[in-house]
């Protein structure tokens, strides 16, 4: 079967592409550098999905519990140890994603002439392979763009971010796995022909195209190009790391949204939803506030804040870790969830559904698993760093559980249903 050629004009002419640096070796190096970052970013992304425990209560942000979500990860309970687990997985997700961006852009630069390949298809196989690049490139750009925009608290999408980012990533991975399978032989051949490191030792005079072709005189060595991409990656990754690790490193996060403290006070660590934004009436969190403890069919106790403060208190240093990739470790004090379960008359609770007073918002009701209720550091926190919680941090009471995603650490708690 023969496929037609397009006229050799503009970008469809091979000599249109002038850089002597482009070639299979360069693309192979960039692809190999990208692979571990994408692997970590994907795995931690799916772990984050699992950490939301979408099979419990109303936790699922999309699709609902049960089968039917073919790729959804069920089957294990999100643990509470180590307490920094979610801070680590979600921090890695955002850091590896941002670190990958300069390499991804460089890799797209290195292969852009292939977009104008002539003839456009050499065989059915080649045509299908090129079609699969729509998944690869479109999926990658879609997933990266939505993620990067979302962590900057801008929502111009017109669709719901979570399900789009999740299924966009699966679309991307469908293209990526095929791409890797098809390109491993190309990578191995490039490294066998040129050596893995040898081209890095060429000076400018010896920087020639990988295969004989018409090209511009070089102005940059391959070493300098890859070095520049590497420095850009590490640099922009370090800026993202600032808001994950916090402390003195937060100063690195000059362009990241969460690198900024709000002041020196005990309640001045970052907030993910201010009190003013959720629309709770002020009198509902005043002296008349009550915590109601229920079982699935009846109310078992109604407690004032003073009643809770009179119970045995637990204090623990725990991170609050956000899906957006920032975290902040504080010293929390409150009542153990297990003690509240006992007070509700449930000895071995399997779940607890925690309701916030906030009138709207998807995660105003969150269900925790058995291990999360039973952990001795899981608490309904009343204080942070020795003082009462501020309204922005959930006064009168909020949930703090080791390794629990930040959005599940419900603030302004009004009701808990143990089952």
């Amino acid at each position, binding site marked *: 079967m023969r496929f037609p050629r397009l006229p050799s004009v503009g970008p469809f002419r091979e000599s249109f592409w002038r850089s002597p640096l482009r070639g299979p070796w360069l693309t192979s190096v960039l692809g190999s550098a990208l692979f571990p970052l994408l692997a970590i970013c994907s795995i931690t992304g799916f772990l984050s999905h699992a950490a939301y425990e979408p099979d419990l209560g109303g936790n699922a942000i999309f699709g609902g519990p049960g089968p039917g979500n073919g790729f959804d990860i069920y089957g294990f309970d999100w643990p509470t140890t180590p307490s920094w687990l979610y801070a680590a997985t979600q921090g890695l997700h955002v850091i590896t994603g941002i670190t990958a961006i300069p390499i991804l852009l460089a890799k797209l630069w290195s292969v*852009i002439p292939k977009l104008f390949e002539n003839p456009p298809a050499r065989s059915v196989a080649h045509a299908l*392979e090129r079609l699969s690049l729509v998944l690869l490139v479109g999926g990658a750009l879609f997933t990266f763009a939505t993620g990067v925009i979302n962590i*900057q*608290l801008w929502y111009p999408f*017109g669709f719901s971010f979570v399900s789009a980012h999740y299924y966009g990533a699966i679309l991307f991975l469908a293209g990526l796995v095929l791409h890797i399978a098809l390109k491993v032989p190309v990578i191995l051949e490039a490294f066998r022909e040129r050596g893995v490191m040898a081209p890095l030792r060429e000076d400018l005079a010896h920087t020639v195209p990988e295969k004989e072709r018409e090209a511009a005189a070089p102005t940059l060595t391959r070493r300098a190009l890859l070095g520049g991409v590497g420095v*850009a990656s590490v*640099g922009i990754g370090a800026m993202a790391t600032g808001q994950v690790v916090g402390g003195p490193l937060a100063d690195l996060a000059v362009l990241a949204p969460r690198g*900024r403290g709000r002041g020196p006070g005990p309640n001045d660590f970052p907030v993910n939803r201010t009190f003013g934004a959720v629309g709770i009436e002020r009198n509902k969190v005043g002296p008349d506030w009550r915590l109601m403890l229920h079982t699935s069919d009846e109310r078992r106790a109604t407690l004032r804040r003073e009643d809770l403060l009179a119970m045995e208190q637990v204090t623990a240093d725990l991170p609050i870790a956000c899906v957006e990739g920032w975290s902040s470790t504080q010293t929390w004090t409150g009542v153990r969830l297990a003690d509240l379960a006992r007070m509700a008359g449930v000895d071995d609770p399997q779940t607890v559904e925690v309701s916030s007073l906030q009138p709207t918002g998807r995660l105003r009701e969150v269900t925790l698993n058995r291990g999360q209720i039973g952990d001795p550091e899981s608490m309904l926190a009343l204080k942070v760093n020795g003082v009462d919680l501020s309204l922005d941090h959930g006064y009168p009471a909020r949930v703090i559980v080791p390794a629990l995603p930040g959005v599940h650490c419900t603030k302004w708690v009004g009701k808990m249903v143990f089952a």
Partner: protein
Amino acid sequence: MRVFRNLYGAGPLHLVGVLLSFAVAAYALSRALDLTGAPDRILLWLGGAIVAHDLVLFPIYALLGLLAAGVLVPGGRRTRLRIAALNHLRVPALASGLLLLVWFPLVANRAPGGFMRTTGLSSDVYFGRWLLITAVLFAGSALVLAVRARGLAREE
């Protein structure tokens, strides 16, 4: 088998792989279109992402690069100093452009209201920060070039 290869252009395993990949992708796309409530927007963003990179971002930076190379290293005047000057322009320009690309929503202050409601902070600091970083990058690069210039000129 040879007939298949001749017709298809690769072995049967290739076809199996491609079909598997397309099946998974079709599943993911159908779920995304089902769940997000705005299927047209999903398709717009998927297609738009490719167009924005391949036909907007790439041509812009490639043309700017060609322009810079044409001015600083015109044909027949390839001196080490001129090549160094080009690269001392490329590095800060690309770094600054990368930061603008990645942190565009904050630098351009796209969602000040939402940012304030969410974090309790104002988001108008980022443009100034980006500008400062850009200035430091260009100034630093120019300074290093100035220090190198004499040595490069002597080598010619």
